[in-house]
């Protein structure tokens, strides 16, 4: 199973996600990337992130993504 950091690196290898606290405002993820990320998270963790949760606030940084994963029952 991949980590969130590895998935982000696959989607946008040119960016240093560790250096950002807001991937959306910093331009590291656009709307297409977010949908790609949702599909990758769904597949990787065997979950189905809800449509109402596909909003920028949930993909701002590693912490908000982890909260979203926990909400979907992912425990690590």
């Amino acid at each position, binding site marked *: 199973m991949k980590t969130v950091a590895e998935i982000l690196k696959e989607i946008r290898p040119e960016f240093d996600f560790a250096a950002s606290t*807001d991937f959306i405002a*910093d331009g*590291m993820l656009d*709307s297409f990337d977010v949908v790609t990320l949702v599909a990758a998270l769904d597949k990787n963790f065997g979950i*189905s992130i809800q449509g*109402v949760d*596909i*909003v*920028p606030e949930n993909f701002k940084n590693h912490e908000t993504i982890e909260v979203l994963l926990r909400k979907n029952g992912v425990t690590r």
Partner: protein
Amino acid sequence: MQPVDAIDQIFTAIQRIKSNAPAFCTNFFPVPQKLQNWVEHGELFYEHRAEAAFFFRKDHDFWRAYFCAANAETLKRELIALPDAKSKPLVMDIIEREAALDSMLPNLESAGFRLYARLRRLARLNPPDSKVPAIGELQPDYASANDAGSILSLLDTSFDRYAEQLPAAYEVEAAINNRQILVMKHLQKIAALLFFETQGVASAIRYWVVAEEFRSLRYGSALMRAYLAANAAVRRFNLWVRADNQSAILRYQHYGYDTDGLVDHVLVNEMIRK
């Protein structure tokens, strides 16, 4: 088809389709701010079907169609049964990886849509230590409010309204206010423009055009150099270009852009003729 009054309606509709749909498919990548603008301007409508949700945005004299469906086969079935697909001129963008094995195109073509154009995404990476192209003698300006009409006119005559997502007047006005349109003027007339959107370390060119009578005056080059210099902190530059516009692709390659593997298939229904 009913008007969307609030953004929540969209997310609720997406969720209804997405739940328990592992092969969920969509061409809808909504950005909340853009959605809000569409809702406020009364441009966005929706249609709920049993296994799909469709959204329609008014654009010029046609509609841009977006979908969320449980899977590609369901999408085809629901599209065939959708009355609006036969009575309204529809344009649909499908963004995929090039040569995607699970392409949605065959299902959409079976549902009565045909390929109208194909766009490629080009990207230019800009590592922190890279050089910014030198600015020449020609100095572009940022567009002012008085330029809005001329900008819209130049865009309308230079780009394909089905394939290239032309902006509404309010979008041009907002872009001018946000200093996102660089222009070159020739005797007070707008001869060329570069319309861009920068967000953090990413920037996208929406349109770069020189009016036909002003070509070979190096206005396009001046705009691109000024744009790159003004966005030196950007790490990734993007744009979409028609795959058949080889001369434009060559120009972008000259400035360091290259294909990044994403394609946008622009499909139209039978209500739109060639």
